[in-house]
């Protein structure tokens, strides 16, 4: 394996560079996935049938908490990658762990939110609007859940194997994924919650 020391560790081998480009292309596909969900949501947002409307079920407090937690986690994973580039393994692992804990907090609030919706009569079967809402949020939530386990595995590997071109590459790609989920959430916050509450 040829290692190019003039580049950051995560870019240092040919294989690593391929993986990073491949992952960017994957994120392109993910953008299309969420764009389709949003297109569906905009189409069905006012088709509430006999069920509640968005304005009736959306609560600002949990949504703000979720937003704060996820945005903060995007910041901490950025710090984690920064620490990785400085070669500070301990700081990196700490920031990654904080990121995942924030992610778990986000998931907790989101699950609480879902339970509240169902109690208020907005289950996934209620109307086209609730089906689409919960599917869009659920897809994002499922991504965060998968990300949680993925991140956990990476923490375990970095702990055991140290910062190698391979583990650095995995960590960097994971950070791209995590930032992406944050971007999607900003769209959810703006175009589902804020728009829905107005």
């Amino acid at each position, binding site marked *: 394996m040829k290692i190019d020391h003039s580049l950051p560790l995560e870019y240092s081998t040919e294989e690593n560079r391929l993986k990073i480009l491949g992952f960017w292309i994957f994120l392109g596909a993910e953008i299309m996935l969420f764009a389709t969900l949003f297109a569906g949501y905009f189409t069905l947002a006012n088709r509430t049938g006999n069920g509640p409307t968005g304005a009736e079920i959306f609560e600002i407090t949990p949504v703000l908490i979720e937003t704060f937690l996820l945005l903060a986690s995007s910041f901490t994973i950025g710090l984690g990658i920064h620490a990785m580039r400085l070669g500070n393994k301990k700081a990196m692992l700490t920031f990654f762990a904080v990121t995942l804990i924030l992610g778990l907090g986000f998931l907790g609030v989101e699950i609480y939110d879902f339970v509240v919706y169902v109690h208020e009569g907005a289950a996934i079967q209620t109307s086209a609007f609730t089906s689409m809402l919960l599917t869009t949020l659920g897809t994002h939530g499922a991504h965060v859940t998968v990300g949680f386990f993925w991140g956990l*595995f990476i923490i375990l590997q970095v702990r055991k194997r140290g910062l190698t071109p391979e583990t650095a590459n995995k960590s960097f790609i994971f950070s791209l994924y995590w930032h992406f989920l944050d971007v999607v959430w900003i769209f959810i916050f703006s175009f589902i919650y804020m728009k829905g509450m107005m």
Partner: protein
Amino acid sequence: MDFFDRFAIPHASPAIYASMVAIVLTSVAIVAGLTYFKKWGYLWREWLTTVDHKRIGIMYLLSALLMLFRGGVDAIMMRAQLAAPESKLLDAQHYNEIFTTHGVVMILFMAMPFIIGFMNFVVPLQIGARDVAFPRLNAISFWLFFMGAMLFNISFVVGGSPDAGWTSYFPLAGNEFSESVGTNYYMIAIQIAGIGTLMTGINFMTTILKMRAPGMTLMKMPMFTWSSLITNAIIVFAFPVLTVLLAMGTMDRLFGTQFFTTENGGMDMLWANFFWVWGHPEVYILILPAFGIYSQVISTFARRNLYGYKSMVWSMVIISLLSFLVWVHHFFTMGQGALANSIFSITTMAIAVPTGVKIFNWLLTLWKGKIVITTPMLYSMLFIPLFTIGGVTGVMLGMSAADYQYHNTMFLVAHFHMVIIPGVVFAMLAGLTFYWPKMFGFMLNERIGKLTAWIIAISTLVAFMPMFFTGLDGQARRMYTYSEATGFGPLNMISFVGALGLAAGFVLLVYNVYYSTRYASRDISADPWDARTLEWATHTPVPSYNFAVEPQVSSEEPLWDAKKNGHELFKGEYKEIHMPNNSGVPFIMSSIFFVWGFSFVFSLWIPLILATIGIFACMTHRSFEKDHGHHISVKEIEETEEKLRGA
């Protein structure tokens, strides 16, 4: 016994029972044969666990041929049913199932693996790479496609086939009108295969963007590689739409959501829109690689460089962009209003412009060329006029006002078959004949090959031209029979004869494979067609590492330069080569996906959960696995090269 009732066929017939017996017997024969000849180890080591792009390509092609025959049998049954008025050969339900599976199998499980098979085999060789960017992912792509296809194919003997058309429009595809599990199969089998295709898209985009031989700039890539790059970009942007769409359809059918229902705000037109937002680009996913193959074949056998290289590239780029802007033309009659229809009419007709550019470029490549008529060239020559018939009728269908006459008639069916058969199928057969020597080390018989090409071309015209006329006279598609008073009888009988001719053509193709395997000379050079690009610059059979020394490129026809202009392709010494290891995980994980899909179709929740855990376990295993591949030593390369040069 209640548990087992769900697996019964809702509309059983003697033909289905016969198929069940045939499937069981074939499976037993395969297992017995493998055991008797002690081939299990060989199968596992050399094929099931392989990550070699060439072997994966060949497996794609074999699966595609298998599916071609499955879809072909469906086609023959349909044409037989329609050959005479008031025919009682099939009942309405059975006919519905057959046209649905025919469409799905031919598009998704025949044409798609065919083009992806060629991409796998040809692209890395054509760009001078040792494999694709992510060989393990490539194996997963193949096995997901394969398991998806198998899951879809068992539907007709376990639980019932889908019957809502390959477009599966809601509310027809909803639980109310499609009670059997058939449409569940549609939603889930295509989902599994679709995930595989999406990964192929990512894999090949990365491969083509990053792994080209030194000197091969983007504008020096061979045309098939260009078409593959653009196709894979379309895959990456179109397939996620399908993923979401199928997930929504699955949830409507199994979890009672309200996306496409007719009450509680559901919107059935959302399905139609999303389906074609994916479905129209899908058409170009099929046709662009076919255009790529024609470009290679035509310039090889006109003994000229491709005319208008840049305009070929740009026309494909424009086609790929326009392909996302035309989806509404599939349902002009479904109530968008005049403005939307006009806009989509214009974008649709605009696609004829870049496509026309390509046709003229091929014609101008032939102009003053020293044309050699070989089987691949014959298919390409037949393609141009026949495809033009399909293309021109496409422009007719694209005019929204006129479309009210053509919509959902046999005219439409004739149009898309005249596009897909000469466009895609001829290209696949041309490509198969063209690349056969590179894959298997001997050539297919030219005499039988040319005869096959003529039979297939003439039969295509005989089978589909009559449909233009019955369609204009008002014969609706997907109707299982018609009365004698309509007068459609004789023309449909002609179509049936054409269908039999097509079947004969494909049987002849198989015979050619058999005949050539037995009698063809094994003593062929690495470049039997006197071709122009890098895939012909390496040995036949291609060594696992493709090229012992990385080739140097200075134009879009490196091999031609090497042969005619003294360009030096292979400079430098042998160096140790790093190659990926084989792995059984892709096959195992995809098998679990099969169980997952099957459990989902029949709402067997406990196996579904177990399979889901199994899939994630495979992914976890991959995350922790340490696999740095292996190295082929210089000595080993020297020995291999020596042996291949001597052969």
